[in-house]
């Protein structure tokens, strides 16, 4: 709650310092994150990409404060993360809109829950609903909205809380290709408007390159940072920037090579046959 008094857009840099996370204990222990360090810089859109199932969502749980790291530390603007807070809001993979609330009630949830549902919050909610183009759907339940609308309603629900950091866990997964591209442009425009600190997780390379200021490429399980690429394609970007752009293709090749290596590691997973295949494959490729 004290974060209300802090000026936004400052001191929201997130630093993960040598963090590790193991779920379970004894013979069932599973190490998901290991010796992982990275920085999510203030006022930038940082995208994290890695093979699916590599532990990216666990990192979100740690940053959001829903889980505590087994080792290491995460700080936000120098303050260690000790639990969830409204300075960091998470948009989950699947819609987490409350099905029993209308669009309007969903958007107003945060202010109401904190007892701040005054005139200002109502105006802000109206403004945000207009911004995400859902004024006409304010009295509909989530089940009556399309996938893209649900994501936009969720963005509005998060933005009304004015978080210093927005954390998005594969938010556009499952949308059809057209809606996905529209959502990229839409989300990028929203980001460019106020340039808050955004942390975005994906497995989609095009999505990553289209959106990111900085791209964190993760290793396979247990995950850590493999490489960091600054995406220096000027904004505002259009879809052609990631298809007919030499710089974008260069980055794409680099990312694909790294991800392919990581994906292959998980593919072999200790199997001799798969390892043989990988060896033969790499010879042929060479």
């Amino acid at each position: 709650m004290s974060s209300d008094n802090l000026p936004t857009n400052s001191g929201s840099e997130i630093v993960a310092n040598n963090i590790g996370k193991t779920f379970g204990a004894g013979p069932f222990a599973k190490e998901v994150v290991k010796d992982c360090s990275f920085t999510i810089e203030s006022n930038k859109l940082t995208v994290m990409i890695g093979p699916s199932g590599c532990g990216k969502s666990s990192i979100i749980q740690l940053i959001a404060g829903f889980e505590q790291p087994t080792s290491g530390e995460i700080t936000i603007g120098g303050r260690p993360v000790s639990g969830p807070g409204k300075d960091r809001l998470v948009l989950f993979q699947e819609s987490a809109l409350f099905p029993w609330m209308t669009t309007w009630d969903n958007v107003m949830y945060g202010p109401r829950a904190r007892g701040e549902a005054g005139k200002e919050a109502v105006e802000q909610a109206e403004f945000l609903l207009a911004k995400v183009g859902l004024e006409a759907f304010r009295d509909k339940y989530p089940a009556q909205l399309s996938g893209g609308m649900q994501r936009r309603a969720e963005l509005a629900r998060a933005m009304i809380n004015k978080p210093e950091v927005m954390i998005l866990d594969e938010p556009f997964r499952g949308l059809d290709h057209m809606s996905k591209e529209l959502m990229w442009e839409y989300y990028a425009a929203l980001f460019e408007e106020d340039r808050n600190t955004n942390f975005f997780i994906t497995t989609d390379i095009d999505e990553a390159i289209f959106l990111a200021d900085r791209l964190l490429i993760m290793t396979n399980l247990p995950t850590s940072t493999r490489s960091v690429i600054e995406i220096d394609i000027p904004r505002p970007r259009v879809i052609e920037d990631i298809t007919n752009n030499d710089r974008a293709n260069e980055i794409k090749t680099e990312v694909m090579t790294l991800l392919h290596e990581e994906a292959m590691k998980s593919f072999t997973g200790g199997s001799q046959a798969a390892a043989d295949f990988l060896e033969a494959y790499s010879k042929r490729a060479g």
Partner: protein
Amino acid sequence: MNINKLKKKIPGRATLRGVTAIVVFIIIWELGARSEELFGYRFPFLGLVPAPSSVFVSWAQLIGDPSYWSSWYMSFLRVFGGFLAAMIIGIPLGLFMAVNRTFYGMAFPSFEVLRPIPPLAWVPASIIFWPTQELSIAFVTFLGAFYTIVINVLGGARSINKQFLQAAQSMGATQWDIFRRIILPATLPSIVVGSAVGMGITWEVVVAAEMISGGGSDGGGAGGGLGFFIWSSYVGGSYEQIIVGMISIGIAGYFSSELLRQLGGYLTPWLKSR
């Protein structure tokens, strides 16, 4: 617009089908019951049952009889009394078990040992430890709905999508607000389902309890309820009245469930929108 028109038509057609089925059923029953005089051969089972026409006559006579209506009244009173008590105790108990691990650890094992005991097995014990027969019937009726409601509420509240809780938490909601505006509405559909199932069991139990206990303390038919009404008709040899009693319970149960459905639909409007 077109979809709305279509929606209005569908219940009409469904009602028509329902009515047709009932009419056909009554005709077959009538023919079966009169099979001996009509065909010279008595149909198995149906041939032994009073014909719907004579049941109807017997029913028409009963319509003006206050003791018949008092049977309805007594059974309804017991069903809704037991059912309401089961909701008032069962819903908070289920929710509390779901949110408090310590309490869950303490309460759940005993609950699971008691749950398989059929409510009717409680009849003798409850006659012993409740001061009046009325209370022992009410108690057995209560048990009928209680376990189902608790188990549904518990299951519903424990299977809430974790992301709903995390989302609420990260928006700065207090524990109380999460309970009131997330856990409670998320559990409502399970509460509605549990209540509907519980209501059905309540009717089963009340009728059996009335038969076993002799229909309550007031003596005679007056305090009896529909279960006792059936039993005394059987003892008195009025087979038409047995059928009247059975159909009455069917209708009473239907109205009770319909009431719950309406109430449930009103409480969970978001489910209709799918």
